[in-house]
């Protein structure tokens, strides 16, 4: 069994969604870790959930990166541990410098809350190992600032290193401007670090784990993490 630590910041609001998906849908161990804690409770996987940490004051994720728990998350990531940041968690990972780039206001300023399609571009991360390359996932988004941006030379490096893990696409998989909900550069929905153990994405896989919720496509992301942990023999 794999243990997932779900980090809770003041203002996190998808922490219970992640906990529920891990524990009750996948049948794994889930532990909440308060942002002031410095113990990851034996985590095999760290989840930074969605929400509005610190009310999005200053910039999304800008204050959360200084939370005491983040030094533990950084050490865990530096040791090769799998870390996933979902939505606000992605914003925190970018602010903390664990991933490259930034997230701007959506290009049409609207808060977007709907299902989108993303294509799995890389299957050699701990969160996509059970997916098929090019697999299309239907996942919900819920964000006002998901417009991925990085300097052109950074984007070139990310593409050359195959660090773009998820890309917005139409239902059949083709890229188009209308399928890019927020104006992200190169339709980037999620990226990983160079070592590939830290992944961040704007869509919410934890909210797409049961058919009653409109999609089960998010399961493969969490199941990939379980498989990665079990195959590493650390569980």
């Amino acid at each position: 069994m794999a243990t997932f630590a779900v980090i809770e910041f003041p203002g996190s609001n998808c922490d219970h969604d992640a906990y529920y998906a891990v524990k009750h849908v996948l049948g794994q161990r889930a532990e909440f870790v308060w942002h002031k804690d410095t113990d990851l409770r034996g985590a095999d996987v760290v989840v930074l959930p969605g929400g509005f940490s610190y009310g999005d004051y200053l910039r999304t994720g800008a204050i959360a990166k200084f939370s005491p728990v983040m030094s533990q998350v950084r050490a865990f990531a530096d040791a090769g541990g799998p870390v996933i940041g979902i939505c606000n968690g992605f914003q925190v990972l970018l602010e903390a410098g664990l991933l490259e780039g930034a997230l701007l206001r959506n290009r049409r300023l609207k808060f977007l809350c709907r299902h989108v399609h993303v294509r799995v571009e890389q299957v050699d991360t701990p969160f996509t190992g059970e997916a098929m390359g090019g697999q299309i996932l239907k996942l919900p988004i819920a964000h006002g600032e998901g417009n991925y941006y990085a300097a052109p030379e950074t984007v070139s490096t990310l593409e050359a290193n195959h660090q773009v893990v998820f890309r917005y696409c139409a239902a059949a998989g083709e890229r188009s401007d209308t399928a890019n909900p927020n104006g992200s550069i190169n339709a980037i929905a999620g990226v990983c670090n160079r070592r590939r153990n830290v992944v961040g994405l704007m869509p919410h896989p934890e909210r797409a784990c049961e058919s009653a919720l409109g999609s089960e496509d998010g399961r493969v992301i969490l199941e990939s993490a379980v498989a990665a942990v079990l195959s590493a023999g650390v569980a």
Partner: protein
Amino acid sequence: MKTRVFVTLKPSVFDPQGRTIVQALGSMGYAAVRDVRQGKYFELDVDTDSEEAARMLATEVADRLLANPVIESYRVEVEE
């Protein structure tokens, strides 16, 4: 010592808020406003009498927290 930090998006970064504001101004008849870039302004009350110390501290704070160097640049002013 009163210290001011102005944070703005880098010129290469698209500012959807600024664009919306300039469009609103256009519809209000202010066609002379060609562009708007929205930024942030911080007033720091720094416990020092040294202008140089206030500037150094504000610069450090801007680097570490107030601005995100990926998308933003900043300018520091110290009240004389």
